[in-house]
């Protein structure tokens, strides 16, 4: 991505409210062996305002989980700038910053079965953050706090001495949420928190997350592949494809009029739980598969599957540009210069 894009990304995000998190040109590459580098996240820029929920959607392997894990510093970013609450957390960070980060930024995980240590009781799990960040707290106080947290997520103190395997998936996910809330974070990265849950349970967790946000002014990065739930919980949505963000917009606007051909295809591919609509709507079905992130196509990454691919798509990287206030797309169809060169009409004014 070019520097122009970064400036735009940073500028485009300004609006009402204060930015809690600003990410500029973040990259995370994994070296698999001497020759292959997996570019899981390859230059993404976005910002999240305080109290806002940004949805991050994309198919498996697009790098959305890596974004979350790089932000929470489970992975060291390869390059790029990240500013969180005024702290620079992009490159190497010192102990104090790390400690504050571990306090202010928390994560909720996908798999409720592997996200809780099977050898620890619920109290031990939920109080871990308290033990680490508040070692002077008396055990009694700590227990009280754990009980409060359990009640907050809809469980009760009779659950405190139990082990994870005694709980159902939805209950485990709530224990995971209580663990994250124990240190009173400002920002929570929710990495597909409902993907592994049953349909009837998903709404419980989504409602809980929304309620917590309302009561505590939490900011979320909500990572998911299920677009209908993302739309429901997010204020804005970023769509990722092969390590880059291809479109970022207000969630209503994105669903009403997706601009990027990939977003269009993604939206039309979700089967709706409504037979009448399913019978009448036109589906755009993409051909082919997602290329491997170790072997990314030149130019626009989506061109191999895009129904509108042109010559320029293979030659020029699309710029992630603002096409409407608060709306950015990385696609040549919305770039006046490229379209003039191709002798085609601009898709969007």
């Amino acid at each position, binding site marked *: 991505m070019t520097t122009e894009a970064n400036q735009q990304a940073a500028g485009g995000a300004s609006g009402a409210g204060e930015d809690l998190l600003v990410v500029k040109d973040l990259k995370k590459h994994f070296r698999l062996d001497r020759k292959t580098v997996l570019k899981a996240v390859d230059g993404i820029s976005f910002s999240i305002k305080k109290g806002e929920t940004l949805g991050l959607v994309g198919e498996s392997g697009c790098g959305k989980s890596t974004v979350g894990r790089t932000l929470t510093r489970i992975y060291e970013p390869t390059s790029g700038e990240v500013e969180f609450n005024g702290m620079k957390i992009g490159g190497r960070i010192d102990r104090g910053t790390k400690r504050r980060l571990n306090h202010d930024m928390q994560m909720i995980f996908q798999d409720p079965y592997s996200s809780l240590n099977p050898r620890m009781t619920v109290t031990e799990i939920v109080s871990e953050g308290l033990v680490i960040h508040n070692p002077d707290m008396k055990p009694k106080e700590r227990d009280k706090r754990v009980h409060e947290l359990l009640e907050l997520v809809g469980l009760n103190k009779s659950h405190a001495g139990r082990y994870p395997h005694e709980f159902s998936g939805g209950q485990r996910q709530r224990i995971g949420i209580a663990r994250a809330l124990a240190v009173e974070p400002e920002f929570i990265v929710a990495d597909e928190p409902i993907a592994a849950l*049953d349909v009837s349970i*998903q709404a419980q967790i989504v409602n809980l997350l929304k309620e917590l946000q309302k009561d505590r002014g939490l900011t979320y990065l909500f990572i998911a*592949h299920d*677009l209908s*739930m993302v*739309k429901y919980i997010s204020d804005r949505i970023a769509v990722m494809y092969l390590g880059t963000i291809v479109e970022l917009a207000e*969630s209503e606007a994105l669903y009403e009029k997706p601009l990027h051909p990939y977003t269009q295809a993604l939206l039309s591919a979700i089967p709706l*739980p*409504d037979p009448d609509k399913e019978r009448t709507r036109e*589906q755009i079905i993409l051909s082919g598969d997602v290329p491997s992130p170790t072997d990314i196509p030149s130019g626009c990454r989506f061109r191999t599957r895009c129904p509108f691919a042109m010559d320029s798509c293979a030659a020029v990287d699309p710029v992630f540009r603002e096409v409407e206030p608060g709306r950015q797309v990385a696609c040549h169809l919305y770039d006046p210069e490229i379209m003039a060169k191709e002798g085609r009409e601009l898709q969007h004014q």
Partner: protein
Amino acid sequence: MNQNILEVDNLHVSFKTRNGAVPAVRGVSFSLKKGETLAIVGESGSGKSVTAKSIMQLLPKQNTVIPEGTIRYEGKDMLKFSNKEIQSVRGSDISMVFQDPMTSLNPTMKIGKQIMEGLSRHTQLTKKQARQRAKEMLELVGIPNPETRLDAYPHQFSGGMRQRVVIAIALACNPKILIADEPTTALDVTIQAQILRLMRNLQEKMDTGIILITHDLGVVANMADRVAVMYAGEVVEQGTLDEIFYRPQHPYTLGLLRSMPNLDASRAQPLIPIPGSPPDPSALGTGCPFAARCPYTMKVCHDYNPGAVAISESQAVRCWLQDERTPPEHIPAEIKEGRRSTEEAAADAEGVTA
């Protein structure tokens, strides 16, 4: 009207465990016609997969008991089949597609050979003819360069392409019934759309009856003609696609539909979750299994589990709300409304067909 090619009647399946028999399927009945798609919907542990596997008799013999019930394929009870008879049906008349395309292919065998394996077992085709047929099948499921791909190994295919190969294998012998157990759960949405369209197209061409096992109501709306909703090993409601989505009669069906966000719905509108968790199959009481999570529970629900009642030509429900003794003011408006329009809809449908 079409004849039923598969009839499952009062099927019970239990698993033997250290702590005694645990019921997984408790009295399931449904039928499938030629060329139609029946979706079996339910959450994990509802018994939907077990039901599918018991049709194919793929459950481990040493710890499965089928104490009651019949599975009739073209009028013959498959549960009484000998091993040989089952094997002749399996893969030729009835075949199955599994959830995980990564594990349902043999990694050490060329895919052409995997397709031909079934053909040589169930048909009289020569090797050359079988290879030709395998090539046609790959072409049919939309795999480019089928001739060269016949000699490729599974790891050379992507997830979506593998699932296409799995479908090619399943359909190679022109089965009358295809059982698809969460065929797209492991795939991405854009690939899922490809596979669902492929299955619909092939169904039209070959007139296959499909039993589609899924938890995704979107997939159901996209694919099914009829739907059976399973909960705790029972079919709590079944009916046509429109009946289930627009006139649900069981509180569980209603709850499932209400807990899903609609792409049109505004964000301010809260989702209505079903409280609690699905029951533990080893600790099921005698009452209605949904009573603990149902907003309309009555005294009777705790001790008596209702049987199924037919409320239209095509819709049946297991719920005490359908009993005439239930005070009318206790029946929620959605269910009342749905019931009235069912009769009207039935009348309409009669009018259309006549």
